């Protein structure tokens, strides 16, 4: 048995993590294909922002979508979902 001051008495029975930006590090380095938005084609519908599984796209009605490349893993879901075909996946390496 561990003593009462043991760290094992203080930790929860199962690991808990709280959401924080970049908790897994700079995941943008995982990317091989980079989504590039053509703002001339973009209709500012916001679907890319809605679909991004990593919440790396910010969106305002005025400025449209903006991708945070420090964390974007390059999954391509935004490009697949864009109804205006305004997002192109560009090879980085």
């Amino acid at each position: 048995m561990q003593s009462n001051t043991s760290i094992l008495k203080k930790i929860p029975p199962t690991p808990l993590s709280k959401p924080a930006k970049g908790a897994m590090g700079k995941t943008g380095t995982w990317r091989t294909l980079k989504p590039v938005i053509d703002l001339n084609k973009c209709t500012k519908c916001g679907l890319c922002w809605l679909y991004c599984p990593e919440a790396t796209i910010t969106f305002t009605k005025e400025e449209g979508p903006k991708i945070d490349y420090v964390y974007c893993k390059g999954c391509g879901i935004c490009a697949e979902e864009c109804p205006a075909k305004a997002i192109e996946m560009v090879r980085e390496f």
Partner: protein
Amino acid sequence: MSKIIITTGNYSAAYAAKAAKVDVVAAYPITPQTSIIEKISEFIERGEMKAEYIRVESEHSAMAACIGASVAGARAFTATSAHGLTLMHEMLHWASATRAPIVMAVVNRAMGPPWNIWSDHVDSLSQRDTGWMQFYAESNQEIFDTIIQAYRVAEDPEVKMPAMICSDAFILSHTSQPLEVLSEEEVEDFLPPYEPPFDITDVDHPVTHGNIVWPEPRGDASVGYMEFRYLMHQALLNAKRKIKEVTKEFEKKFGRNHGDLIEKYKVDDAEVAIVSMGALAAQAKYVVDLMREEGYRVGAIKLRVFRPFPDEEIREVAKRLKALVVADRNISYGYKGISATEIESALYQLEKRPIILNFIMGIGGRDVKPEDQRKMIEAAFNIIETGQLEKEAEWYGLVR
């Protein structure tokens, strides 16, 4: 008020889930378990049970749904057999490591191929290392009582681990016996509502369970993966103590005791004892009575809990015995019966050990009659006389 009815092992499990006021049931039908969840859906449909029944497309999903429900604070229940249980295997690890105190009724059935729906303990024993507590019941009443007890143990803050209550296909599942159904009020007094360790429904303070943990302490994490595994091990060791406390309290309140980790029957002055799991443990006691009338100093041990394993408890009995017959309704291919290997490992620490005769019997539901158990016990008495143990594990009743 409780009432006495005559019903099957499967309905006994359903009545227990109802009496325990289970909040969520997610299950998928499979013979011979199906009538458990049929009865539960009937209870819910009639408005007699206020639970959410989640229909799923597989047992893997059934367990996943139970985990989600349990973590969110619900008392979760499911039931399965054989291939359903083995399909759940991944989620069994997930449930215990999430520390979700789910209780599951397992109706032991042989694994295919070839298809066989009869009793065999390989399905649940193959889940030995998933972190689940395993209880084996010998009667319909024990199925009912153990489900209630198991929630108490599983939900204890010092345990927080899931439990499966195993019973033999058809021998119990589809056989009617008298059953005292405890009322929800009586049970609630013994089993208070479940209180989850965390409130994950607090959306203002979101948390994730089971995210990545590194081999070593790293960053904000003061411990690594290994420490969480140690806590699970400690939890099951705590469960040994809790099972004893809970069964004692249950007896005081309801007047029944099916044993705690093991049940000892006439072993105090015995030279030989037969170890059994499940329904055959009941028949073993009958055989012991018959043989005692003829002067045999024989007793019976029911292995009621297989995990956590009752090593000290078995040692305590076995050190006084000359021989131990271990009857296994299972086989670990390439070695011997699964409970025999566990018992032998526990007895290794003894200075003076009894001879162990392991019988592989009843595989795929093959009938084991009282005269069969008698022959196994007689073989042990012969070996005490001759001192000759020819085979460590014998396939009993094999057509040759």
